[in-house]
Every structure is written in structure tokens, then in C-alpha cells.
């Protein structure tokens, strides 16, 4: 059979959104791959130039609707740096709490979609069931399940509700117990190991060269976590361990899976620690100036890697220029490297493990 291209997308069960992965196959083996994006292009950076600073938070929520708070938080951080204002300490604690809740919810969405990618539909329903716990917590905290519009320039929108720490402890404790069930269905499954181990390998040097960040880079055995390397908010005071692949043979789908999976536990630990250490009184927001001039730059540890916002103001009440760096966009550039030489069926197993979010990739 001659080599031919197969379009995996833009409408295909594999794609977690509207994009196209073209793969050139020789029989079942992939000889080349080519990600095609642009189906979802929304012109974020341009739209943000005509809206006021505060109103842009609504937009940044929708960059990745699975992980809204982490994105709107990165934007707010950049704008705050440009304005030169400091968020009150209690506001920072609430931000860390909401960020970690959102990270767990986002990782659970990834886990849910990774199951069907491997043909395990049961994993989808189970992980979505557990995601409800964290969406409920987020709803209590912010009033919304998705697209919360919670971080504000200068703090957060509202205080934590009454008795929220007890609710967090209860939900997280229940969830940590449930995670053992996931280990049985994923870690202990021979078939799962067969499908993930040694598949979609990328070396640490290649990963750095192509701009892969976040859990995908940590899976190559490199200890990068912006919460530790360039701490923002109160992450310095929180005691946690970035989840890095310990062995020498990292960089495959299995290592990415393990790193993300362990981050679920680690984020739960952070949540429990934050509700413990959080000051009970104090302001959670300060008034922000309406107009600003200068440059602001913030990079944070998003659920999928390094999210970067660059905001420039020219003294008006809206940004002069916004630049977004999406971690998935950079990771996508490296996917031909991951895919070449693997089998056709592995396209899904590999792309599922890097956690694609088309919303932020195609900003």
C-alpha cells in the first residue's frame, strides 16, 4: 500500500476541539505528521485591545474553558505588574486556592478524555463524576461552574464563603480515596501500560528546543515549575513538590500520564494546606487604577504548561497591546516529533497525553 495522508480532524472523535492533525502513514506506521490549526481562531489579542482592563478578564476566562481561572489569573497578574499594584495577602491566598481547585478540575477533564482516547469509555464517566466535586467547590467559591470571571485586577471578586474550608477538606478527602480506584483501572492495567509505555517519546533536549513546558517537560525529567522557579502569589509559603519523572526513561506517554496524575494528588495537598494557612481576616481586593501606562509581564504555571501574558498600556483605560503565549501552541509544534515512527493508533494515545486544549492553542 502506498503512503497516504489521513486527516484526523477537523471533525473527528480524536480531536478535543476543532483542529486537524494530518498524519502520513505507511500501512499503520506514521512517517510524517502535520498539525493544522486556525479553525477556531478568535483574534483574542486584537479584541483585548478594544476592551477595558477589567472587561478582558471575561475573555481570558474563555481562552481555555476547562481551565479558566488559571488563564484569567495570568492576565490579571500581568496587568497588576503593569499598574504596579500589589494584591492583599488574603486575596493572594484565595487566588492560590482557586487556582489549585481549577487545576484539579482541568486535570480531571484531561483524565476523562484520555480514557476514550485509549478506548476506555468508563474512565470518562468516572473522571467526570469526580470533576463534579471540584466544580461544586468552584461554584461555591465563585458562583459559576465554568468561565468563573473570578480573578480581578487587584484581587478576587469575592470572599470565600462561610465554612468553605470544611467543604474543601471533605471533598478533597473523598476524592483522594477515589484516586486509588483510578490507579487500579489505569496503573495496574497491563493493557494500559502496553499502550502508553515507550510511546511518543521525546528527549529532554528536544522538548526544551521546541518550547514544551509544564507537565510535559517535567515528564522528561526536568524540574521546571514556575510556582517554584519564579514564585507568584503566595506559592513560596506553600509546601509542595513539583511532580517530576524520576527515572531515566521519561518523555513517553506513560511519564506524562504519571506526572499529571500525581499532580492531582499534589494539588489536593496544596488545597488542604491553603485552607489551613489562609488568614481569616483582611482585604481580598484593592481598588485598581482606571488608566495605566507601561509594560506588564507575567508567566504562570498553567494546567498545561507555561502561560505567559504581556500587556502594554499607553495611558488609556485599555491595553495597547496584549501578547499571549499558549503552552499547547508550542507543544503542538513538537507533535510531529512525538508521532513519527509510532503506529496510527498511537496518535490518539500521544495527543491525549499532552493534553490538548484547542481554545488556548488557537487563540
Amino acid at each position, binding site marked *: 500500500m502506498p503512503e497516504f495522508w489521513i486527516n484526523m480532524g477537523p471533525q473527528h472523535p480524536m480531536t478535543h476541539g476543532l483542529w486537524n492533525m494530518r498524519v502520513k502513514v505507511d500501512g*499503520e506506521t506514521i512517517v510524517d505528521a502535520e498539525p493544522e490549526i486556525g479553525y477556531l481562531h478568535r483574534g483574542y489579542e486584537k479584541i483585548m485591545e478594544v476592551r477595558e482592563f477589567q472587561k478582558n478578564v471575561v475573555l481570558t476566562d474563555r481562552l481555555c474553558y476547562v481551565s479558566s481561572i488559571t488563564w484569567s489569573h495570568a492576565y490579571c497578574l500581568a496587568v497588576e505588574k503593569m499598574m504596579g499594584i500589589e494584591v492583599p495577602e488574603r486575596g493572594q491566598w484565595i487566588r492560590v486556592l482557586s487556582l489549585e481547585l481549577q487545576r484539579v478540575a482541568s486535570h480531571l477533564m484531561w483524565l476523562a478524555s484520555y480514557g476514550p482516547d485509549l*478506548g476506555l*469509555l*468508563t474512565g470518562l464517566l468516572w473522571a467526570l463524576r469526580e470533576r463534579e466535586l471540584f466544580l461544586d467547590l468552584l461554584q461555591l467559591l465563585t458562583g459559576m461552574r465554568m468561565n468563573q470571571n473570578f480573578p480581578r485586577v487587584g484581587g478576587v471578586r469575592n470572599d470565600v464563603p462561610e465554612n468553605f474550608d470544611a467543604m474543601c477538606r471533605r471533598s478533597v478527602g473523598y476524592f483522594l480515596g477515589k484516586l486509588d480506584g483510578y490507579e487500579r483501572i489505569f496503573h495496574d492495567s497491563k493493557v494500559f501500560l*502496553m*499502550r502508553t509505555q515507550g510511546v511518543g517519546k521525546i528527549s529532554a533536549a528536544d522538548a526544551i528546543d521546541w518550547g514544551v513546558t509544564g507537565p510535559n517537560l517535567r515528564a522528561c525529567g526536568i524540574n521546571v515549575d514556575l510556582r517554584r522557579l519564579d514564585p507568584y502569589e503566595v506559592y513560596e509559603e506553600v509546601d509542595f513538590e513539583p511532580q517530576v519523572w524520576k527515572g531515566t526513561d521519561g518523555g513517553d506517554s506513560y511519564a506524562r500520564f504519571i506526572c499529571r496524575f500525581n499532580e492531582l494528588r499534589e494539588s489536593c495537598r496544596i488545597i488542604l494546606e491553603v485552607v489551613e494557612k489562609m488568614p481569616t481576616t483582611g482585604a481580598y481586593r484593592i481598588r485598581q487604577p482606571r488608566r495605566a501606562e507601561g509594560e506588564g509581564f507575567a508567566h504562570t504555571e498553567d494546567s498545561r504548561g507555561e502561560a505567559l501574558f504581556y500587556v502594554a498600556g499607553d495611558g488609556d483605560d485599555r491595553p495597547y497591546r496584549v501578547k499571549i503565549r499558549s503552552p499547547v501552541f508550542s507543544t503542538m509544534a513538537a507533535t510531529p516529533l512525538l508521532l513519527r515512527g509510532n503506529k496510527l493508533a498511537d496518535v490518539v494515545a500521544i495527543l491525549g497525553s499532552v493534553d490538548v486544549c484547542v481554545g488556548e492553542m488557537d487563540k
Partner: protein
Amino acid sequence: MTHTGSQPLVAPNLFEVCKVLTLAILTLVDVILDALGAAIPPLRAPLAGLSDFLFGGFVVTVLTWLIAMTVMLLWATLFNLLTVMWMERKFYSRLQDRYGIMVSIWSLPFWPFNRRDRPTHKGTGYLQNVADGVKLLQKENLTPASADAAMFHISPVLIASSTLMIFVALPWSSGFYVARLEFGLLFVLAAFSLAPLGILIAGWSANNKYTLVGGLRAAAMLMAYAIPMILAVIALTFSTGTLNLFEIVEQQERALFTIGPLSIPAWYLFGPQILGFVVFTVAIVAEMERIPFDIPEAEAELVEGWTTEYSGMRFGIVFGFKWLRMIAGAALIVILYLGGWNGPVFVNLDLGGVLVPILPEEVYFLAKVWILCLFFIWLSWSIPRIRIDQILQIGWKRLVPYALLAILIGAAARVVGL
């Protein structure tokens, strides 16, 4: 030890039972013909001749065969297929922590069922598959513009007919069968291996890259799994000495050993054939394309595999027949290794010398088949899908050597006299 096996409900066999039905129909026709002859005197003589012809051996036999085959068809599709589909959909829904299908008779839109005081969507869901079938019938039947239309339309027929062919030779009890073939096992395996050919034709003729890859995968899998399956059957024939499915079941009727009221049956599973059982079961799971081995229609990468281009009821046929193949495969495993219709408890009511079965053979057989189906369903919703090269590796590097080893063990057991 005296023979205490339970009796079949369909006795002595399906043909004789259907013959009663045929004769009843013919008698009714005869009455009509008589009345017609009495009313119109000139027609009396030819009608009497027709009546004699109808009651002659030929018409009765042909008609009885037709009725017997129809009964088996309806039994397999209307009862077993619907039930197993319902079981699967309900079972995996509960596995996934949700209710699953709920359309029942209370969901029907007309008067006696749809009452205001009854919730319409809180039933058991048995009618959901019927509703889906009706929906598929209403849908347009598309043929892709560049497809090879003849081949594209033939392959569902090939798949459906080859699957239904299995049920001609597949007995459901010592009485409930259509044909008692001397080489029934060979026939069933041959019919089982026909469907991948239809899948290959379907995949190739649709002129779509997804279906093409799916069809070729099916062909590769047929090669890798039909061979260990046949080899496992060869190992079994060392113990059975026959390819007759009825005799194979009869051989498993005796008790292996008895502890008080409980007697452990001498299934072929308990003995030197256990390795062959494992090989055969894995190969059958691959043959019926369920999830660890469902690569011809791996929906993650191939959209819907070789069924992608089918629509309407044609899709319903190629999709629904997967369950029919699962039933046939489970029934084959039950017959060969799990004692067929022999139950562990033999309950007959002795009514003045006539043994009336309280639990007839059909019940035991159906219970075993359905439990095995549930096992396959449970398996396929708990583990991910295996990759094509790994599937072929399992087939060639694991199953074939194990099957050869099973032949060796079977032969050795035969020599020793186990």
C-alpha cells in the same frame, strides 16, 4: 451412576415441534379447501388433489424446515440479540455510574401505556433497542458517490447471512436445534470466519481511508486469530474424538466427582484442555471484535472504522450483528468447554413416569451463555484497546505457541488416557 440429566423443553427436537405447527396450518388450509370444494362442485376433484399434495411428505418437510429456521432466526435475533444488547447497555451504564437506557413500554405514546400517573422514562429500557431500530429504519440509506456500490451493498448481506448461518448448526439444547450436523463444529467455525471477508469488502468498497484501514485490520486479525482458534479445536478433538457438537456435550454429561449432593461436572474446562480453553476464548473475543481487540472499528482513531460510511438500517445491521456474533461465540465456548446444556443441579419432576423438567436444558444453556456475555461486556468496558501490532503479536507469538502446546498436552492426555 444413572443418567439424571435434565430434559430439553423443545422435545424431541425443533423439527418435530414445528411439524405440529405445520400440520395445524395444513389442516386449516384443508378445511378451507374442503369448504371451497363443497361450494363449487366442479373444483372438488382438483382441490382434493391439491389437498393430497399438501399432505404428502415433500410439502410438509419443506414447510417444516422453513418454519423451524424462522423460529431459530426469531429466537436468535428478536429474543437473544435484543436481550444481550439490553444487558450490555444497562450493565455498562451501571459500571459507569449512570442509569443507562430507560425507554420501556410506559414510554409508548398511545393510550393504554402512557398514563399521566406514570413516569415515561423510568422503565427498564428493554424497548430502547427496538426504538433505535425503528429510528434507523427511518433514516436515509446513503451510498458514497465514489464507492463501489455493488460491493458496498453486498457486504452487510454477507456479514448478516454468514452470522445467521452459525445458528443453523448451533444447538441450544439437545432438542432445540435446526440441523444436527456430523461436523457441526467445523461448519460453525467456517461460518464464523466468513464475516471478516465481508468486513474487508465493506472497508475497501466504501473508498474511504478510515474504512480501508479498518478493513485491512480485520483481515490481518482474521489471519492472526482464526489459526489459534482452529488449533485449539484440534487440541480439543484429541479429547472428544468427534466434531459433532451434540456428542461433545454428551461427553461432558458425567460427573467428575461427587461430594454429597453436589457433583462437579466433567466439563472440558477441568482437565488437560484448560490451556486450549484460554486460547479459544481469547481468539473468540478477537473474532467478535470487542474492546480489547476492536481495532477494525477503533473509534478513537478511525472514526467508526469499517462501518463509517454505512447509514440507516444498513448501519444497524452491521452494528447489531456484532452482538449476534458475541452470542454465537459465547454459545460455542459453552458447548465446547463449559458443559453445554448440562447443569450442576438436575431437577426433574417425576409425574407418573414422565420426567417433567423444572429447569430444562435451555435455561442452563441460556444462563451460561448470558453470564459469559456479561463477562465479555465487563471485560470490554474495563480495559483499553490494544494496538494493531500488539494484537498481531499476541496472536502469533503467544496464542499460536500456546495452542500448539495445548495440542501436545491433549495428545499426551489421550495417550495416558485422561
